[in-house]
């Protein structure tokens, strides 16, 4: 894992005696699309607002590329671009005027850079129209354009899929991929929908009730989920002994009257043959596709809306 682009240290927010974000401590590695996943009201937006300095922290610290947001706000903000909740822009200005306005806050953003970003996000045809005539998807893209003009190391998008249709979500996914590849940007997206995070993120932090529940690599989780073989036989100990000669015992697990084995689906015929040859009665054998959703629901106690 490369150097962390964002470090959270005991980040806590209390409002009126209620703890909304509770001691979040974790690092977000550079070069990834990282998800904040949690049900509505979990504290995702509040955490993001603290990271970008919109609200104060009750306790703790956020470091962007090692720069403290609280102590060196202006410097820290040169490394980050963000859209918090809705992508609101100046509606009486054109898309281009909005970008020019935001570009002016930074040093050395050229016209070429603005045009490059406009093209990258596919806005070139309507960039000189007033923003009030933009669809939500276009405003979203203009928001992202604004957020990456200054080549930040970190792009933060809060619930970017909200209100987008499936095609819009697919586009978002595509240009986020492009950004991480072409601009080397690390991205944080938050969502309450796993199904939308699944294809977008490399890794997700699961947040619930303001607390960090787990951080998972989606690829690893997916791999792990696809390779469980459940074996039902009349004589479990015998089967266990037999299979131990072929498979690593660490990958075997007896649960009730079932034997769970972490292995490829392709191993099923082989296992069946072994068991039959050893005259162990096979009652059932199948690979379980435990979905990501099931796994995440376990972590959050069923509260996730999938």
């Amino acid at each position, binding site marked *: 894992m490369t150097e962390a682009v964002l470090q959270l240290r005991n980040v806590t927010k209390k409002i009126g005696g209620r703890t909304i974000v509770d001691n979040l401590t974790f690092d977000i590695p550079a070069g990834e699309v990282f998800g904040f996943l949690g049900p509505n009201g979990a504290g995702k937006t509040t955490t993001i607002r603290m990271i970008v300095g919109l609200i104060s922290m009750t306790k703790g610290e956020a470091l962007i590329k090692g720069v403290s947001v609280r102590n060196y706000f*202006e410097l820290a*903000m040169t490394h980050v671009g963000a859209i*918090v909740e809705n992508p*609101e822009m*100046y509606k*009486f200005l054109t898309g281009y005027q909005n970008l020019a306005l935001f570009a*002016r*806050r*930074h*040093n050395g953003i050229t016209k070429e850079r603005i045009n490059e970003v406009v093209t990258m996000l596919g806005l070139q045809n309507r960039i000189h129209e007033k923003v009030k005539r933009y669809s939500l998807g276009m405003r979203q893209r203009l928001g992202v354009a604004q957020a990456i003009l200054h080549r930040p190391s970190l792009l933060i998008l809060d619930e970017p899929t909200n209100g987008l249709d499936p095609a819009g979500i697919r586009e978002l996914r595509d240009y986020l991929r492009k950004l991480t590849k072409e601009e080397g940007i690390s991205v944080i997206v938050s969502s309450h929908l796993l199904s939308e995070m699944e294809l977008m993120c490399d890794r997700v932090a699961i947040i619930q009730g303001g607390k960090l529940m787990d951080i998972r690599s989606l690829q690893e989780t997916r791999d792990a989920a696809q390779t469980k073989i459940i074996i039902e036989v009349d004589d479990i100990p015998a089967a266990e002994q037999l299979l131990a000669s072929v498979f690593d015992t660490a990958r075997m697990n007896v649960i009730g009257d079932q034997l769970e084995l972490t292995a490829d689906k392709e191993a099923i015929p082989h296992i069946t043959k072994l068991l039959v040859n050893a005259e162990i009665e096979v009652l059932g054998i199948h690979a379980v596709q435990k979905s990501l959703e099931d796994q995440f629901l376990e972590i959050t106690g069923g509260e996730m809306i999938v």
Partner: protein
Amino acid sequence: MSSLSKLIRNENMKIYRRPRTWIMIAFLLLTVALLSGLMNWESYRNPSTDWEQGLIQVNSSMQQELQNNQELNGDQKKQLTEQIKLNEYYLEQGINPRELSLWDYVNNSSSLIILVTILTVIIAADMIAAEFSWGTIKLLLIGPASRTKIMVSKYIATMGFALLLLLLCFGSAFAAGGILEGFDGLSQPLLSVNADGIVQESSMIVDVLQKYGFAVISLIMYVTMAFMISSAFRSSSMAIAFSLLFMLVGNTVTMLLSSYSWVKYLLFANIDLTRYLEGSSPLRPEMTLSFSILMLAIYYLAFQFIAWLLFTKRDVAG
């Protein structure tokens, strides 16, 4: 990190790219034109062909008043004597005082600074609150500029707008006066009677600028107050409504309460410094010019400080 001048440019862009701003400017110019037209029409309707005879009559009736009326106090007597002196000077020099010159138009335009103030108050009240109403406050604050810097840029842009309106007010009245009465009135001096009872000439432009100056002081106070209100209310319409309400009702209420001595500590009791000019009196007898200047300075700093606190220290959520 953002430079202040670029932030000010951004704020200017937000002001001048809105149609509303240009409607305001057009409204101001139209008002100046209307006022100038009315003045011109009025003097055209009452031509003063026999002005010398008129002045002689006025002077003799004022003389009688001076001699016969026992109830006149010192100030009133002085005023009458000076007016008589001036009129005599007019007659000697053959100057018709009722004939309008370019400067009369410019002088009159100073009464429109209240309109400039109202328009700037609307802009100021909208300056911070609108960002909240539009939801753009988030993007504005997530950038390499501290909140203090953003606030300063907004304040400067607001004052820039006030300055623009003042220049337009002055300039358009000057142009209207020049067009209607000719630009040759430019060198006309201001006549007054000095302490030794001698009629003297002084610069007209200094007099006009003084009028503008006093009006600008109250403009700055009202606009700074509106700016603070903008920072307190996170909705444009509320901020505009409250700012205008304070401005328009504050004065009246202060007048009504002027019998109480604590009234002298109110902003509105101090905001009009022309009360300390000759021929006028402060709201309460114990008030002095330096007291009012001190009060205004305190209010100004308090408005700025509260606006700063509200803008920089509060959470931006929702």
